[in-house]
């Protein structure tokens, strides 16, 4: 570990390395001010806000339906999960019952989105460690998911799929065979990916024991989602307090042991397979019926406060809605997991070498659209 030169009598000088806002592996416009001693990172300061669009302020000037497309743009790698979180908040505030079929469609698309988001994470983690080829492999699989979204939502990335009270489109013709094909191919592709990168000694050597956060620290830093579970805390909202129809599916919550970068990475690989399992079950049991509940044309949320969160792909995605009874939110606070997870980054990166700092940053899976909102 750091730093030996002082002991040996060499006079060394620390220098400040400005990583970002434009840098190949900051995953967007994130900036870290690193104080370096040679290869070692002595201090890290997070600087965010380069992508701040004032989502919360925008929400105060949009009707509830109109705000749905904006939620896509928060975590742009998991648009559907963001939509879902938002409409669930409004539904909870208004007391709307969503039809069963709509819930199943939400689960199917939501889990597909989780797979897509995790694929981007494992891919970019590989890429940040210079594994170009596995990066491409994962993106091809994601491409297939986006093709599926194109069929059902009409968009690939910014899906705007959910509506308050249900989903706008039913499952189109040809969607299910394509999805079945994808699910059949996925395990093989995931195994290939594992063989190229997860089992690779260089990769394991670079990620094991890097950026360790134990369970206590992870809880204190407010980490949620896969990052928390990698530290060994068994908390998955889909199990702890099943929303939607998650209580009907049989799936496991993978857990990590050491809370290091490798665990955080590997957990995503395991979750991809679990999500595929959920989709499989949902496809088998999806009922017929309506896809939209009866909701008024103009949505008016009764006066009051609602806090609702879902298990997003990066962690707990929370919405705190304060309504004054009108057609627009009085205040909407977006609790984004990436923003909170990034808060733990300085602790992970301190005292490691520059390459480890990059690996840790990749492993917490931040999306700057969500960090800055």
């Amino acid at each position, binding site marked *: 570990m750091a730093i030996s030169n002082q002991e040996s009598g060499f006079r060394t000088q620390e220098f400040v390395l400005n990583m970002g806002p434009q840098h190949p592996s900051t995953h967007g416009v994130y900036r870290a001010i690193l104080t370096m001693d040679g290869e070692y990172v002595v201090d890290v300061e*997070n600087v*965010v*806000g380069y992508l*701040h669009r*004032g989502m*919360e*302020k925008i929400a105060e*000037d949009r009707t509830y339906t109109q705000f749905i497309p904006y939620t896509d743009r928060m975590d742009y790698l998991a648009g559907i999960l963001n939509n879902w979180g938002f409409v669930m908040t409004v539904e909870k505030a208004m007391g709307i019952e969503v039809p069963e079929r709509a819930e199943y469609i939400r689960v199917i698309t939501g889990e597909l989105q989780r797979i897509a988001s995790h694929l981007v994470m494992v891919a970019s983690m590989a890429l940040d460690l210079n594994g170009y080829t596995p990066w491409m492999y994962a993106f091809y699989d994601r491409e297939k998911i986006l093709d599926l979204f194109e069929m059902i939502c009409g968009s690939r990335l910014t899906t705007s799929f959910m509506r308050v009270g249900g989903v706008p489109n039913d499952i189109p013709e040809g969607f299910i065979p394509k999805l079945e094909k994808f699910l059949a191919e996925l395990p093989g592709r995931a195994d290939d990916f594992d063989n190229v990168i997860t089992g690779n000694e260089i990769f394991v050597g670079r990620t094991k024991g890097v950026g360790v956060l134990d369970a206590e*620290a992870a*809880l*204190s*830093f*407010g*980490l949620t989602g896969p990052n928390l579970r990698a530290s060994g*805390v068994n*908390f998955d*909202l889909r199990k*702890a*307090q099943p929303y939607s129809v998650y209580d009907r599916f049989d799936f496991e919550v993978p857990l990590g042991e050491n809370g290091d970068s490798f665990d955080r990475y590997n957990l995503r690989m395991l979750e991809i397979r679990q999500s595929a399992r959920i989709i499989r079950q949902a496809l088998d049991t999806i009922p017929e019926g309506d896809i939209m509940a009866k909701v008024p044309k103009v949505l008016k949320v009764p006066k*009051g*406060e609602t*806090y609702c*969160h879902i298990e997003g792909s990066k962690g*707990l995605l*929370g919405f*705190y809605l*304060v309504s004054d009874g009108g057609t627009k939110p*009085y*205040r909407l*606070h977006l*609790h984004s997991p990436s*923003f*909170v997870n*990034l*808060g*733990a980054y300085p*602790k992970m990166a301190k005292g490691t070498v520059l390459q480890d700092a990059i690996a840790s940053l990749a492993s917490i899976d931040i999306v700057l659209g969500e960090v*800055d*909102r």
Partner: protein
Amino acid sequence: MDNINVLVDTLKEKFSSKISVSDDGQSLVVSSADIFPVLKEIKENTQYNFLADLTAVDYPERMEVVYHLMNIKDAGLIRVKALLDKSDPKIDSVVFLWDTANVMERETYDLLGVIFEGHPDLKRILCPDDFEGHPLRKDYKVEPAVRQ
């Protein structure tokens, strides 16, 4: 939201009249001066020891800092509110209880101008350093966007 009545009863023993329940019966209301000891008590002696969210809301007559605390076992949530004077929105920081409060308090300060006393590095986080005003306050004037 979990039922907070049980929690309120246990807390009343220690804090007596300093805490109350809001009108809709969903939130625990604390005056801004007592927030740190109350949250410390909740964190250390109840199940709700995970800070799920921290934000503030600007109402016409007052400012509220809203804490959502979660029970990590079954995801039960409670809401704790601190009422602030609008002219002087100051409150104790809870960074010493949860590290995660660091970024959330900075965000709340940046967007709503709530000053968290005792925060180690209270400066703007989302807006640029030279930004004037606090955009999520209701009296903040938004200039209409210029469109081509």
